[in-house]
């Protein structure tokens, strides 16, 4: 009997340490929520960059023209694409969190489903942004 108990021993997690994150299987809602934080922190760090772009777009006609040059750089495009994803994911999960706060879709199955729907909405929109940024659209 003790052998079967040994076999069925499952990993136990108390306060999760950074080194355990990879082995720890977060539920879909938890993972979407984690990315909500990560995308928020990313946009926080990018604030001065976005303000700089906003400044270029408004300061004068020549600076507006220069903005187009900045946008033509592939690395800038990549950064902007990352920020587009961050904004879209943050927005969609944010709407989901507010709905959960209002007790909409709070049941286990509905919440698990809406956590997946986050990607069905945010990722195609990110793809659209990518096509627009890299000049296909």
């Amino acid at each position, binding site marked *: 009997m003790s052998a079967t108990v040994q076999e069925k021993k499952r990993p136990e997690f108390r306060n999760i340490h950074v080194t355990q994150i990879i082995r720890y299987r977060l539920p879909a809602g938890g993972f979407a929520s984690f990315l909500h*934080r990560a995308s*928020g*922190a990313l946009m*926080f760090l990018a*604030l001065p960059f976005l303000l700089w772009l*906003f400044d270029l*777009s*408004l300061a004068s006609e020549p600076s507006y023209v220069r903005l187009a040059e900045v946008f033509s750089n592939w690395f800038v495009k990549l950064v902007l694409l990352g920020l587009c994803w961050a904004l879209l994911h943050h927005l969609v999960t944010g*709407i989901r969190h*507010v709905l959960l706060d209002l007790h909409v879709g709070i049941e286990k199955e509905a919440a698990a489903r809406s956590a997946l729907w986050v990607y069905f909405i945010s990722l195609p929109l990110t793809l659209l942004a990518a096509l627009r940024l890299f000049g296909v659209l």
Partner: protein
Amino acid sequence: MAAGIGPKRLVVGAHYGLRDWLAQRVTAVLMAVYAIALGVYAVFLLPSGYEAWAGLFVPLWMKVATLVLILALVYHVWVGMREIFMDYVKPTWIRLLAYVLTLLWLAACAVWSVQILWSV
């Protein structure tokens, strides 16, 4: 005696953090409405070019609305970043340092945005 001081002051309880929690949601809704409205208008209705884009920010009410939105964003970001630091940064002095740097970062961004908006 004022409610916030003296032997009956509230040191723990369910209302701690409620204001920040609520403010984060209110600012989120404001930003979502503003961002979606501006995005749809700029992409689908506004003619392209500097004149039309900059012209959008010339009226005083638009400058004020945009600045209020940026201040809402700053408050929203502060609540969110503070939450992240509280959860993951355990040593008190590093967490305090992170708070201070975040506030300085956000204050600088807010002041810069005033300069950007009022230069149009």
